[in-house]
């Protein structure tokens, strides 16, 4: 097989497209979930929300996570590396003493866990934690 300069470039571009496609697909699902929750509003990073996750989770089937955002109306949790990135939405009522909750979630592999809080004034804040997973939790 003769490899011309032009042919090599074309091949390279083809491979790049192939390897990038699945990644952009998953990212689009995450973006869609965020857009559905925020309605397209801007999400600020950092202050006002605390996401607590283990640094390393041995078993991806049950990873303890806690999230706290004083003054939040609701909090959404996303697992960016799962086949379906949605994890859950916590909506706090008038009798909630603190806008905080803990639960256990499934993670398919090492990935970023994202929490987005909707504040009472309509703004959004985000926290991101990376969790290393030794054994994935989505079966096969």
């Amino acid at each position, binding site marked *: 097989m003769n490899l011309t300069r032009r042919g090599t470039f074309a091949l390279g571009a083809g491979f790049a497209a192939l390897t990038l496609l699945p990644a952009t697909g998953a990212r689009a699902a995450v973006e869609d979930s965020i857009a559905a929750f925020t309605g397209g509003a801007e999400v600020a990073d950092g202050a006002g929300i605390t996401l607590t996750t283990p640094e390393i989770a041995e078993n991806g089937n049950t990873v303890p996570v806690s999230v706290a955002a004083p003054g939040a109306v609701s909090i959404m949790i996303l*697992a960016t590396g799962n086949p379906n990135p949605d994890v859950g939405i916590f*909506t706090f*009522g008038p*009798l909630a003493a603190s806008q905080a909750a803990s639960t256990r979630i499934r993670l398919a592999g090492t990935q970023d866990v994202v929490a987005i809080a909707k504040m009472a004034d309509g703004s959004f804040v985000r926290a991101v934690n990376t969790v290393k997973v030794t054994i994935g939790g989505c079966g096969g």
Partner: protein
Amino acid sequence: MAEDVKPRVRVPKTAAAGETIVIKTLINHVMESGQRKDSSGNPIPRQIINRFTCEFNGQMVLDVTLEPAISTNPYFEFEAVVPESGEFKFTWYDDDGSVYETTEAITVG
């Protein structure tokens, strides 16, 4: 209806008026995600609890939308304010339409 679904809830028996209490809930449920396949390669249909609510005397404390990424035997821990004596009502909604309920009374002394 899934078999052997048994909700377990931990709420203090008494509290002071306006006190913050911690509530822990657990319900045994397979939370089948719909992603897994059985031994012959057929996908196992999704069956999860898709919503959990906690109310106190009819006022909402917490309302959670669950997705398949919540672990088997969904567990929640959260805090509530108790303004008066009354009853906490916990409700879990299954994909198959079943509703599991439990109540827990608390006395303000």
